[in-house]
């Protein structure tokens, strides 16, 4: 309390008379000291002091000569005072930037808020002299300091970054943050020489992934500092924003990413990155590399690729071959199942695909279905039915009236990577026939549909994509039964059944 009071009186004195100017050290010392409480109090006090000084324009603007250089002598006392204060301001900013790496979150938050306060004030009462009309008065250096503080190399700063998000709503702040991040990535990643920096990259990602780009130029109305001539400036142009945004992402994705981050980027890519780029095709390299990695990353890259192929005329050789090779047992188990099958449905919806290709897909999907859980089966069986409807030539898979009587081997070659070589069209869908014996009644019923000739209209699978095992369970448990059949074999104990498997391997100890 005493500290706060003394700091308060100090600020009062400083603002009252210039004679007290040397008391500013009383404020800066605890700030440099780094004690938690002292720093908190001093930070607030400094904020008030320099805020007021900025408003009064009592800090010297323009280029800053080195302290103690000869230029000083030529100045008047007033000028000297302003210049001196400006140096102290500079010190204060430096200390605050250091405090952004403090251990205590409150200190970090305080320094962030104070610095952003300075940014706002500097934008309104610029320290740089306006030389010509097109000069941007936004304090870019100061903002860079903030951004550097937000992106520490070796610790997770997501909490502080989420605190910072409120400032990102200002269009000009966002624009300059994007630029600062681009610069920061350039500087940091240059040094590391292709070694991934998980924390740094994670921080960058959490800073830039929530960026909400405006859709129209007319949406850009919220500025922290509005200059008279702002309409002519780059800041007010959507094109410039997009360009900066694009540059930032490209520089971010240029470097090797940790796997988790890779997935996260791919998840948001199609939704919040591609639409705001001037040249989405620039993402092609990134996406093709990701598509080639295999596994879940490939599945995720599919979405971005689809947009590029669909809207930006990307030509992707052997796309279907690649898609075919993506099918492995895990597709029925992974989290992104719904997304993958939604896209696969889109890719296979073309009626111009050759029959051998579709047949290979059908055969592979049903082969893999032999290890799938019921919720996936309930989705994939109508999916296969839809493929049959779109491509009637494939119906030989379920209906081959004049085929050989008995085969000793399934002609389909599972290991073949080339769909055309897989001999899928010579095979039959025995897998689905096996699934007619599935323990889940709905799956068995769905599989039995293929025994009959299919109806013309396609099934809507969009509702089935997100089906979860728990929903399935819930549905069954809520069904009302008219009567409950009972076991008639008399119980003779827990393991007392005839030929009980448990009795062979377990004991009741």
């Amino acid at each position, binding site marked *: 309390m005493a500290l706060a009071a003394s700091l308060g009186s100090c600020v009062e004195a400083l603002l009252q008379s210039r004679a007290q100017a040397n008391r500013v050290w009383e404020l800066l010392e605890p700030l440099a000291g780094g004690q938690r409480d002292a720093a908190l109090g001093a930070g607030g006090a400094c904020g008030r002091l320099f805020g007021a000084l900025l408003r009064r324009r009592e800090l010297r603007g323009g280029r800053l000569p080195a302290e103690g250089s000869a230029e000083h002598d030529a100045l008047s006392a007033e000028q000297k005072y302003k210049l001196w204060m400006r140096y102290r301001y500079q010190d204060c900013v430096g200390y605050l930037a250091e405090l952004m790496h403090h251990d205590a979150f409150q200190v970090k938050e305080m320094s962030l808020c104070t610095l952003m306060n300075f940014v706002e004030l500097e934008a309104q009462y610029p320290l740089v002299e306006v030389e010509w009309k097109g000069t941007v008065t936004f304090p870019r250096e100061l903002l860079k300091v903030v951004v550097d503080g937000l992106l520490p190399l070796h610790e997770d700063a997501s909490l502080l970054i989420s605190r910072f998000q409120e400032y990102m709503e200002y269009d000009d702040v966002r624009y300059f943050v994007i630029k600062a991040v681009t610069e920061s990535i350039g500087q940091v990643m240059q040094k590391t020489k292709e070694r991934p920096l998980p924390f740094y990259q994670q921080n960058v990602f959490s800073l830039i992934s929530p960026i909400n780009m405006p859709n129209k130029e007319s949406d850009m109305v919220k500025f922290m500092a509005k200059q008279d001539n702002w309409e002519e400036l780059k800041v007010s142009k959507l094109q410039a924003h997009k360009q900066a945004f694009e540059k930032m992402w490209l520089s971010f994705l240029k470097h090797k990413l940790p796997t988790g981050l890779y997935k996260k980027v791919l998840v948001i890519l199609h939704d919040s990155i591609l639409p705001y780029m001037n040249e989405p095709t620039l993402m092609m390299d990134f996406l093709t590399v990701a598509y080639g990695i295999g596994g879940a990353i490939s599945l995720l890259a599919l979405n971005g690729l689809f947009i590029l192929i669909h809207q930006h005329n990307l030509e992707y050789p052997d796309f279907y071959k690649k898609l075919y090779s993506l099918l492995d047992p895990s597709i029925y188990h992974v989290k992104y199942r719904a997304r993958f099958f939604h896209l696969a449905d889109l890719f296979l919806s073309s009626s111009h695909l050759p029959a051998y290709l579709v047949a290979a897909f059908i055969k592979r999907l049903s082969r893999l279905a032999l*290890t799938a859980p019921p919720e996936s089966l309930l989705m994939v069986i109508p999916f296969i039915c839809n493929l049959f409807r779109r491509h009637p030539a494939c119906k030989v898979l379920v209906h081959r009236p004049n085929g050989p009587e008995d085969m000793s081997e399934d002609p389909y070659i599972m290991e073949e990577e080339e769909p055309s070589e897989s001999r899928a069209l010579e095979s039959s869908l025995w897998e689905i026939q*096996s699934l007619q*014996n599935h323990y889940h009644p709905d799956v068995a019923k769905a599989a039995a549909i293929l025994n009959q000739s299919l109806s013309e209209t396609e099934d809507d699978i969009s509702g089935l994509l997100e089906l979860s095992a728990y929903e399935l369970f819930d549905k069954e448990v809520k069904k009302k039964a008219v009567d409950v059949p009972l076991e008639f074999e008399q119980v003779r104990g827990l393991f007392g059944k005839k030929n009980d*498997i448990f009795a062979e391997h377990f004991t009741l100890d």
Partner: protein
Amino acid sequence: SNPFEVKVNRQKFNILGRKTKNDVGLPGVSRSKAIRKRTQTLLKEYKERGKTNVFKDKRFGEYDTKISPEEKMIRRFALERQQNYGKKNIYNLNEDEELTHYGQSLAEIEKLNDIVDSDSDTEEKGTLSAELTAAHFGGGGGLLRKKASSGQQDEEEEKPKSRKELIEEMIAKSKQEKQERQNRRESALELTEKLDNDWKEIHTLIARKPPKSERKDKEVEKPKPDEYDMIVRELGFEMKAKPSERMKTEEELAKEEQARLQKLEADRLRRMRGIDEDANKKKPSHVSADDLADGFILDKDDRRLLSYKDGKINLENEDEEEKDNEEEDGEEGGKEEDESEEESEEESANEDEEDGAADSHSDLESDVESEEEAAGNKERKKHKTNENESHNVKELDPELKAPTSELPYTFAVPESFETFKSLLAGRTIEQQLTILERIQKCNHPSLAVGNKAKLEKLVGFLLEYIGELATLDSPELKAIDKLVLPLYNLCQMFPEAASDSIKFILRDAAHDMEEVIEVKGRATFPGLDTLIYLKITSLLFPTSDFWHPVVTPAFIYMSQLLTKCRITTLQDVIKGLFICCLFLEYVSFSRRFVPELISFLVGVLHISLPKKQGQGYTVVHPFTPAGKNLELLLVCDKQDLESWQKQHLPLSTVTRLKEANRTEINHMRLSCIALCFDLIKKSAVLYESLPSFHEIMRPVRILLTQHVPVNEYPEKLQEWYHSALKELETKEKHYTPLICEKKKPVPLKQYTPKVVKVLEFGRKQAGSKKEQERKQLIQRHKRELKGAIREIRKDNQFLARTQLSEIMERDSARKRKVKELLGSLATQEGEWKAMKRKKGK
């Protein structure tokens, strides 16, 4: 009526079958009726349109039809009195009205009564009081005496008055005495009644001896029935000898049992296929021509067959049936009741029999008594049957005699799980079983109405108790093993309750798992209790049904367990293998395909291998091709490998892995592998008929042939391995191309006219009943609307007419007045002119 007022709607054609309603009408009459009605209602309203005052009839109950006129009068009078009460009105002359009798105030007489009270008992002594004699017989000396005693000051003028007084006094006194006597009698009656009631209450509480003594007294009065008569009557009621069916031989019994099982089996198969369920339901049952449609079905022969078991008469079910008989008898009442009672209780004493006989006769005498006794009888009987049953229990398992000797014979069904637990706490498992059995028998649903609900609750308690036993630190699986039997019996009695409670448990478990997945992103295997519940499900319900309200959710839950739960410890592996066994057991009959099972077995084999093997197979979800928790089942120790013996895995390890040393753990691992081999073998046998058997088993085969280090395993394990591999490899490969089922040909469109039966002419036939009703409603609405519009129009016309007539009236009045004025003016003018003329003259 007047023929000129009748209007006839002439019909052009006579149509047969058409009812005509409006052929004759009386327009004049109906119009006048309408006008009259309007004048009564509309005109009144119109006239009162500007008035806000209302006339209210405040006479009490004037429009209340519920009150009878007399009562109405009485109430009105009372109301009037109430209003006047306490009003000191100067005009009310009757204010200080005093009722008198012979000029004497009645109030004073009432006061005098107190004095007379003292010698009211004179009458009882048989002597008449002096006053009474004085009043009735002229008084004589008494009066004189009185006069003398009253003293001289009374004098002559008081004499007539005192006599009058005396008589009045006497009358009042006698009246009061009468009333008092009445009061006394009433109170005595009341007391006896109360005593009776109290007695009745106690009567039910204490044993039945006291009523007997009472009845004995009565018996003395009535003549004892002749013994001969009794015998004759009894003979009349005695069952005639009937030819009984011959005893069935053992083979026949076995055959019947087999037939029953076959029927049940056929049922099960039908449900397993799950297709023709609906078809079966809809088939109407055959109705005999002799059926009286009274709902009576002779579905089975109630008569029991005499059968022997181990050389003794098989009496196991007898008691229950007897009990049933008794119940029926109880409804009929009468002698059979007593007889059956006599038969059933060997230990019943002589007096009981007498008692019974007395009962039967007293029935005839007084209805009230018999009713009471009937109630009593029933209650007693219940006790007895319970006792009988518990006796039987004792006899049936003599080895239980010693421990059960302390147990009470009757138990109430516990209302909460806590009481249930406390009931079983501290008992041996045999005692627990006995308790459960007794609870079941004492509260059989046929004994009382609420028993069914109570016992249904018991199912849930028992399940919960089993779960609790399984979650103990050292699970009491032996006890659970025994407790399954009563559970099965209860389940047979209350399938719905059992299925509901198991479904509830499953839903809870699934819900918990879902929550864990949402929070942590991965699930862990549940405790032993859930596994036991799943096992119990397979014991209680048929697992082969195509769809079953309990088994199908259990399937899905188990599938979730195998695909979602992480495998991090040896216990997890054992739990997983337990669920695999469950799956195999569930589908052992129906041979349904469980993909999760095979995938899990592949995964188990995968974690038994050293890392970084060349692959050729893929593992799915809970297992990962690389990463943590691999080599969970890998055993490298040569010594452990050699010393291994196939052992049964104790289930308790699932909750608590004993602090075992490495060797034991290694042995357990090897047992798991052996179990896995066995499961592979069993599933191979199960699925060999599936068309894509080889594709399903391919990863297993690759693992077995290429990766599993057979030669390192001990010999016993190698045996398991080879038997599993043999099952996989001996299967032939058969692939027959699929052919769709032939479509049913679509029937050609035909052009024969559609014939619709016409049931009633003049009515629209088309449409279903609902549609017809709707149309009718619409039509009625239309008609009503038209009628309403017409009425409104007529109302307006009527109003317009009245308004017009008002205006006319007003105008004519004005004209008349104007005329009058003008007339008077003219006369005035005339007079004036006449005067003027006079003046001028």
